[in-house]
């Protein structure tokens, strides 16, 4: 089956000599939900910009559903929907018109565009707001409008650049549900986000980019399996003056009722609890210090520096 996105030896050197991409290879299969992660300035936006023909590449090849973005730009672009990070629409335009105009850029006749806009607005809960101008929408609604607009030409590949940035948790959850539904219906999705919890919850694959290179790429479950240690925060009933000694685990005292324990993934947590109980320490609650993908991300980024 043709890949949704195939990137080979992609390089980008900007006019000022800065090498943003150092020859990356990346494959996204049809139906994948992939997270593209990386710290600021790692090369995520450049990669997305090149795939969307917003930025010219210095070298390499990019194919979207088997179509080269340079040799078959019209066909390749027709397959992609883009939801950029910043709000980019005329705030004075009616919500419905924003979507219909976008459809026009893809050669969709106005009547059909109106029908598709209606479907997209209903799916994203904006139907009631269709006649009002975009400036009347809340932040979450504006984000949903951008997704509705990107979907109007029914792209096979949807690229979302931090779609939930600055969105409250309730709207974020509803957007997660919508994106999952979209992926289940066959749309391939690529997501960039700084919320690694989001990537771990939604995506089946992840690519981590740093300093213009892909430092890790694969299934989320496989990548998390590479973590050798996890860090937990334990709230305890007893008041402690110093950190307890728990075999080969690294333990530090956060405050008198909280300890931080770094435990090898090969070790059983039951054994940890046994040691704590033996020392008369009772655990009231326990949580991961950071999300597992976040822990892996931080390690990989640190290692690649």
């Amino acid at each position, binding site marked *: 089956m043709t890949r949704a996105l195939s990137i080979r030896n992609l390089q*980008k050197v900007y006019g000022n000599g800065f090498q943003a991409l150092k020859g990356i290879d990346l494959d996204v299969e049809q139906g994948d939900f992939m997270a593209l992660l990386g710290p600021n300035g790692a090369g995520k936006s450049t990669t997305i910009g090149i795939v*969307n023909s917003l930025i010219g590449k210095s070298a390499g090849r990019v194919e979207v559903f088997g179509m080269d973005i340079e040799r078959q730009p019209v066909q390749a*672009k027709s397959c992609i929907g883009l939801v950029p990070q*910043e709000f*980019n629409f*005329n705030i*004075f335009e009616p919500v419905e018109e924003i979507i219909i105009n*976008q459809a*026009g*850029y893809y050669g969709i006749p106005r009547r059909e565009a109106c029908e598709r806009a209606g479907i997209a607005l209903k799916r994203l809960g904006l139907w009631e707001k269709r006649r009002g101008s975009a400036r009347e929408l809340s932040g979450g609604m504006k984000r949903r409008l951008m997704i509705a607009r990107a979907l109007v030409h029914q792209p096979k590949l949807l690229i979302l650049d931090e779609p939930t940035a600055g969105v409250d948790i309730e709207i974020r959850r509803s957007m997660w549900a919508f994106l999952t539904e979209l992926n289940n219906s066959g749309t391939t999705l690529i997501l960039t986000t700084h919320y690694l919890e989001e990537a771990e919850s939604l995506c089946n694959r992840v690519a981590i980019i740093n300093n213009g290179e892909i430092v890790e790429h694969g299934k989320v479950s496989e990548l998390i399996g590479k973590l050798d240690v996890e860090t937990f925060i334990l709230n305890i009933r007893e008041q402690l003056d110093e950190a307890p000694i728990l075999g080969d685990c690294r333990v530090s005292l956060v405050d008198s009722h909280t300890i931080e324990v770094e435990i090898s993934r090969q070790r059983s947590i039951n054994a940890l609890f046994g040691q704590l109980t033996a020392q008369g320490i009772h655990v009231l609650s326990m949580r991961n210090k950071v999300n597992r993908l976040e822990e892996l991300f931080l390690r990989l980024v640190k290692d690649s520096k």
Partner: protein
Amino acid sequence: MMVLAIAARELRALFLSPLAWAVLAVMLLIHAYLFLSQIEQYLAVQSQLVLIEGAPGVTEVVVSPLFGSAAVVLLLVVPLLTMRLISEERRSHTLSLLLSAPVSMAEIVIGKYLGIVAFLLILLALLGLMPLSLLVGGVLDFGLLAAGLLGLGLMLAAFAAVGLFMSTLTIYPAVAAVSSFGVLLLLWIVDWAGNVAGEGGSGGALAYFSMMNHFQALLRGVFDTADIAYFVLFTVTFLVLSILRLEADRLP
């Protein structure tokens, strides 16, 4: 198809902003005043003109000066209409929507250009209605009227092309407006330097570049293909420059 979609969107966006309505209202108000003043002047000398053989008619006395004034006023107004075409898209990051859509750079530029030209044609049609109202009580020289309208139309098309190009150069609409006005004014008055330099050599070349010279010929009813070619080449040049400027954004 895509060009028309972009042009239609541009025209709709223009009418969604108060600027387009304000421009239409102010232009019609000013020109209604000028038109009525010209008619009054014509009526004052009409009795004497009747006695002169080959004297100018109402079209020469009223319509040609009206279109001449319209060109000067539009020299100021068109940059205000074109200033946002690309610069605003850049500023609000909406240009990326066009660049990532399956449309070529030429389609984007021509679509936007046709959108603004459509608006200017609406304005031209409304201005054209004023002379036509003279048919109620007089006779018009339709050849002269058509040449004047053609000249004004070509002039507006050239103004819009310059304005569009200037809008591709900056993210600030105000800068685009001021620079468009500067270029248009320079091309309008370049003839003055030509007059000082004399008829031949550089003076002749400068006079050729003056928009006013080519427009004045059409306003007098002189239909010369060289004048038409000047405006067409002028417009095409600035449209090509606009396409190249936007293409430069995507170059590796």
